[in-house]
């Protein structure tokens, strides 16, 4: 079995693409970013339930785009335009609502501007969805430092809790039919609310008991001196961070702000590290920063950096004008930079799943 790509690498890669998306409104570049992230997701995702959430993110992105367009049409837009597409009846608003417009002229420029803007947001969302599909947040949480481990478990448990809740609600709602009550409609959903929460509570208690019996929360003996040092470092560090931030933000604190902030951060991190010694936990096959992970993270970072550079040097190509309306053109070298984001598809494709244990096959077909 080959080394896994670190969960953090996938998130860095996806956030790199996302950052690149914020640097441009060129629909051709954004489309290219979408295609790149989509291709990587399809070739690299493993068959976990969260991998299937990618489609949900795609739908959400479409909704965001649609909402942005509807707002531009209904509420108008500050973009001056001459190409009137349609004139909606304008709702007269009282004086105090000055500056807000309902209805009125809809210009092609405003719609195109909203489209570009919405597409940028949508691309950003799809990039987050890609990270989610390639490495679940749960995996990311496993890389937290030891002292924060218990917070990580709480989040993981909460993340698995929601799907259970939905399944319960669905089952109970169906069971209403067995009582001769309608199983559709909002009322049906509301009436199963209490039993669903009851069931969820019972499950949580059972899980807590199971976790306790399996050694969750065991602590190692540490000398009292280490205890006190941990407390002092953490508290002192946090104070330092506060003071340093204050210094940075006030005019006269420019000199001491940065050093104090850095010292505070260092102290807080040392406290965390020392605090981790109280927990005897070890990690089973932790994600490592192997060359593959570095390549994945690096490709994302390079895409972000190159597009930022391109945006600084040639803003015109990355932000096609809407007034006057011009057809966007594909700037050559930023497009080539975006294609660098395809690197993960080459270095870290998903392992082919053996046919007999294909996870796509659901439990019902497995002989038990």
């Amino acid at each position: 079995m080959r080394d896994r790509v670190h969960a953090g690498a996938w998130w860095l890669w996806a956030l790199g693409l996302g950052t690149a998306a914020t640097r441009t409104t060129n629909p051709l570049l954004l489309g290219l970013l979408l295609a790149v992230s989509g291709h990587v997701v399809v070739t690299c995702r493993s068959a976990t339930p969260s991998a299937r959430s990618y489609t949900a993110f795609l739908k959400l992105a479409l909704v965001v785009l649609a909402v942005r367009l509807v707002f531009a049409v209904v509420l108008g837009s500050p973009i001056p335009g001459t190409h009137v597409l349609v004139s909606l009846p304008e709702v007269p608003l009282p004086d105090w609502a000055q500056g807000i417009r309902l209805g009125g002229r809809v210009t092609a420029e405003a719609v195109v501007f909203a489209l570009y803007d919405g597409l940028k947001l949508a691309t950003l969302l799809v990039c987050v969805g890609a990270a989610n599909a390639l490495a679940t947040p749960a995996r990311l949480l496993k890389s937290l430092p030891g002292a924060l481990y218990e917070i990580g478990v709480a989040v993981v448990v909460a993340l698995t809790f929601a799907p259970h809740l939905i399944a319960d609600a669905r089952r109970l709602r169906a069971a209403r039919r067995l009582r001769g009550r309608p199983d559709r409609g909002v009322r049906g959903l509301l009436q199963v609310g209490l039993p669903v929460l009851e069931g969820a509570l019972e499950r949580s208690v059972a899980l807590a008991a199971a976790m306790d019996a399996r050694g969750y929360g065991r602590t190692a003996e540490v000398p009292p001196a280490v205890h006190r040092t941990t407390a002092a470092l953490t508290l002192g560090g946090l104070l330092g961070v506060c003071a340093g931030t204050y210094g940075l933000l006030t005019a006269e604190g420019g000199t001491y702000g940065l050093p104090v902030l850095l010292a505070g951060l260092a102290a807080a991190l040392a406290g965390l590290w020392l605090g981790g010694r109280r927990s005897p936990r070890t990690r089973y096959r932790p994600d490592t920063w192997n060359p593959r992970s570095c390549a994945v993270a690096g490709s994302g970072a390079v895409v972000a950096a190159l597009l930022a550079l391109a945006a600084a040097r040639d803003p015109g190509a990355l932000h096609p004008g809407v007034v006057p309306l011009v057809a966007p053109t594909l700037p050559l070298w930023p497009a080539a930079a975006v294609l660098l984001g395809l690197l993960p598809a080459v270095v870290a494709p998903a392992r082919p799943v053996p046919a007999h244990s294909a996870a796509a096959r659901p439990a019902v077909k497995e002989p038990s």
Partner: protein
Amino acid sequence: MIRFENVSVTYDGADRPTVRGVDLEVPEGELVLLVGPSGVGKSTVLGAVSGLVPHFTGGTLRGRVTVAGRDTRTHKPRELADVVGTVGQDPLSHFVTDTVEDELAYGMESLGLAPDVMRRRVEEVLDLLGLADLRDRPLSTLSGGQQQRVAIGSVLTPHPKVLVLDEPTSALDPTAAEEVLAVLQRLVHDLGTTVLMAEHRLERVVQYADQVVLLPEPGAVPLVGAPADVMAVSPVYPPVVDLGRLAGWSPLPLTVRDARRRAADLRQRLHGREPVPAGPAPAMAPPPPPPPRRPSRWRLRRREAPEAAPADAPAAEVRSLTVVRDGIRALRRVELSVAPGETVALMGRNGAGKSTLLGTLVGLVEPSGGSVRVGGAVPHRTAPRELVRRVGLVPQEPRDLLYADTVAAECAAADRDAQAAPGTCRALVSDLLPGVTDDTHPRDLSEGQRLALALAVVLTARPPLLLLDEPTRGLDYGAKARLVALLRDLAAEGHAIVLATHDVELAAELAHRVVLLAEGEVIADGPTAEVVVSSPSFAPQVTKILAPQRWLTAAQVREALA
């Protein structure tokens, strides 16, 4: 290894101890079975071993429990985690992570084992439990037997000296149960693990036990002894013991094999007698010919007016039914017809499509092809209010049907839902559950009582077709006997009953007909005796013992000898 010294446990708010005077010693490497009717405190005894009682549940524990020399008074459950592995009744509520491999490693991570040790043990356990193919699978996609094996594996990796299991096979089909028991056998034999387990389905486990601890009633002093000795006096016993007591064998045989070797003279005595069928088998109406042509689509789309069914019409009729769920063919061209007064048992391994078939009969699942008729109506197109008077389903988890916070409120709601005269449901509840007061919360009822309450709620509408999904899960033999008597009466009154079950003994006692499903297809459909006798995994114990004669239950034998 485990030592109970005069232990009694009293929960907060209870006026008397749940268990009392438990004096028990489990030596290393033994498999000890905890038996007794439901509600006698089996789970409490198990919880006391892992320290969850009283550290997690609250209550007062008197006496002393030591595990591998550690006193549970001074050690919290998490500090016992390296010597005790606990698996509860529901494996899903035991899982902390989301994939098989991570779940196996979780316990070791908490204990702080070195990474190379963890890696080795995970591989070992994957092999030991036959989970290697499933290592990357998300836990939620596993079948019941697989989940149970992962749950056991997840507590095995820290190499505990003691394994505590609460009903490990109750939810499993016979084959999956054998899988799990084979694993336990192997642990006891090869690794010297001490196993303490509670189980209702004694016919599956009693032969593996080295010692049996019997809790005869709540708060009574437990009886400890060799399995055969305890079974001779136990109020709960498997059919093989029933037959052994009937024939007066001593010592009692606990396995089918032992019983067979003794059964020669019993077979002799039974020679020439015929088993009395489980009930008057209804005259099977010949299945009507399939409809000459598919009704046109627009007719199907209309909400069909429920027509009055003729008296001899089948209570349910399924014609070449196909159901596709999430791209999977859950049922494939299933044919089934149930006559009034007939009891049909649906059997097959976990995930064979039993629940889906019941779901289509009550309209919870929409057929993708073929037709379903219940009393002349198409279930998924009939309004729920109308449908409850034709068909009722008691789901696998009876609690799903109960919303109210008192029995009285539940009954009043049931009367309203079914448009029955006020008091109908309450009268049924008094019949089924004598002694349950109006203000009891449904959650405080035992598993069997809850089932009876759900059954009463469903019966309020007097549906001619009654469906039960896995009704004996978690029921002790007493509750099961009451359920059998009740269902027999209902069948005699003309109710058609379909039950999906893994419990071969229940099917043998109750069903006129058995339908075997595999991979969504009907692979056998015929009178109970014929179908179960020919199948090694679905044959009840008495059948196996007295083969080639065709007896199904000890009750039949008793009647024939009387």
